[in-house]
């Protein structure tokens, strides 16, 4: 099947404006601005079943419909902070198929009547930001951005904004704080960004992959999109496959594709033909799926099915863990990450990740006792449901499921 998002893999040079245009580029945006009302655009996206690809899976059109029309101006922000360990899809989209992403930003902006949109990129994407700046300039030159677009009174400006190395800025309210020139710390919600966002104004924040779907949904219709994937999870998804597989990389597949197909057909199987021990379907924030039965691999990857395995699909950053990996090592790695990235605003996360990291280190170093394993589980569970944003919650997922599903790995490294 031809790609919908990673179209640069089928169409060479689609990162060049004339090539993108020749392949139907900007027709959807032009048609929206000249022939459709903003609310009609939102309805098409709503009916397509598109859900947010950043991890939360919130229905995109529904989010757009929440924009507060009594408070102006409106903003659209593309979340290109991509920082989840195991996720590397947005970068490939922006490098390979930048105009489809930017057209998605433009359509979203029109749908919520925003005249300014920002693309928030993680600071490490320095070269990519320069590249997108060039692409934005080309769009302005060609009349796809700027004042009075296509002879209407709709105007739109697009800007990039670079973060500076903080995982938490992927959280949408922390991201907005960061654009405002502050430390990236999440806000207390509600209010949510569609009513109180950037500079306190109604704002829609969407992930890069989510927005990149939009031009083709508009061009081909909601039904076309809905017919792909599963009833609960419409469309295609880019699965970032990493860890102990032969061919790691991004694979664009319909929702509902099985883990087996992803790992074995596309990923070439496990390195050295070892057995899959666990799967983390949502990067470092994942619960650890126990693969003790081959049948687990036949589970379809959609939001509902993955939940039956006691995990969330999230951003679909599938990290494959083989039988040679011990979970005490793995959990020490993930906890170290979250301890470093905790923003420090709320106590359960700041203190919880700190104490968890002491425990995981001690366990991994062989200095711990069985009671420390129990204590680690208690600390993690005490944090759950008490943190200001999802980061704190995420930091506990691998810990809790690691101990509960792979307890032997911990007990064999502790002192008797």
């Amino acid at each position: 099947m031809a790609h919908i998002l990673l179209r640069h893999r089928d169409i060479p040079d689609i990162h060049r404006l004339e090539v993108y245009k020749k392949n139907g580029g900007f027709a959807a945006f032009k048609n929206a601005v000249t022939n459709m009302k903003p609310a009609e655009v939102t309805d098409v996206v709503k009916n397509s079943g598109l859900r947010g690809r950043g991890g939360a899976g919130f229905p995109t059109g529904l989010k757009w419909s929440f924009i507060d029309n009594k408070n102006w101006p409106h903003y659209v922000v593309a979340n290109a902070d991509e920082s989840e360990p195991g996720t590397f899809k947005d970068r490939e989209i922006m490098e390979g198929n930048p105009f489809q992403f930017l057209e998605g930003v433009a359509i979203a902006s029109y749908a919520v009547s925003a005249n300014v949109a920002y693309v928030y990129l993680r600071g490490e994407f320095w070269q990519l930001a320069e590249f997108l700046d060039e692409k934005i300039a080309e769009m302005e030159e060609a009349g796809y951005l700027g004042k009075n677009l296509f002879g209407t009174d709709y105007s739109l400006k697009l800007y990039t904004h670079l973060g500076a190395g903080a995982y938490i800025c992927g959280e949408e309210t922390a991201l907005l704080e960061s654009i405002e020139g502050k430390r990236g710390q999440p806000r207390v919600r509600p209010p949510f960004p569609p009513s109180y966002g950037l500079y306190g104004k109604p704002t829609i924040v969407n992930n890069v992959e989510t927005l990149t779907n939009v031009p083709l949904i508009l061009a081909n219709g909601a039904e076309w999109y809905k017919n792909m994937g599963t009833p609960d999870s419409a469309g295609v998804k880019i699965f970032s496959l990493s860890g102990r597989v032969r061919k790691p990389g991004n694979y664009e597949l319909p929702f509902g594709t099985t883990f087996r197909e992803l790992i074995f057909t596309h990923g070439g199987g496990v390195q050295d033909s070892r057995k899959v021990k666990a799967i983390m379907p949502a990067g470092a924030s994942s619960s650890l799926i126990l693969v003790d039965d081959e049948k687990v691999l036949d589970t379809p990857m959609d939001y509902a099915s993955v939940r039956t395995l006691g995990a969330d699909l999230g951003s679909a950053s599938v990290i494959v863990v083989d039988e040679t990996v011990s979970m005490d090592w793995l959990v020490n790695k993930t906890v170290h990450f979250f301890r470093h990235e905790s923003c420090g605003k709320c106590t359960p996360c700041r203190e919880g990740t700190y104490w968890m990291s002491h425990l995981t280190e001690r366990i991994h170093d062989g200095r711990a006792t069985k009671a420390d394993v129990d204590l680690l589980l208690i600390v993690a569970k005490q944090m759950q449901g008490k943190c200001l944003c999802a980061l704190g919650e995420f930091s506990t997922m691998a810990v809790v499921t690691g101990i509960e599903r792979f307890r032997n790995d911990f007990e064999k490294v502790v002192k008797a």
Partner: protein
Amino acid sequence: MSLATKYPKEVKQILSKYPPEHKRSAVMPLLYLAQREEGYLTKTAMQEVAKIVDITETDVAAIVGFYTLYHDKKEGKYRMQVCTDLPCALRGADQFMENLCANLGIKVGETTEDGLITLEAVMCLAACDKAPVFQTQGPDGIKYHENMTVDRTMELIAALKNAGGEAK
């Protein structure tokens, strides 16, 4: 020389991206600009940025302290930032780091004797399929180096040394 006199065009361009009543938003891009040449932010540079966007020096310092890509201390000319997070570690990043340290004769966090390279372990760089991976942060911005080996890294270091001369 001050930022405004040295980079008037860049400062103006950065400020133009944000609503005039929210010029505080320009603080992050201005800090990158101020850090460009020395590789770290001097107190004077932070004071100037504070003045341009009309916030206190304390606010600027808080931002510099919060984000990992801003630095308030002079280190090597290039920061070599190797990802050692879980997905990279599953593909040999820890071993790569160990071998690199041995080759450079320094530990993680240290700088080579010639002042060219500071070696750092960092969090995920969104290139998990191309491990071992690191970025170099230096006078020419941030660059990715993917699917690296120690040999190729040593070649890169030699090239950086030849290109820029000895770094103080």
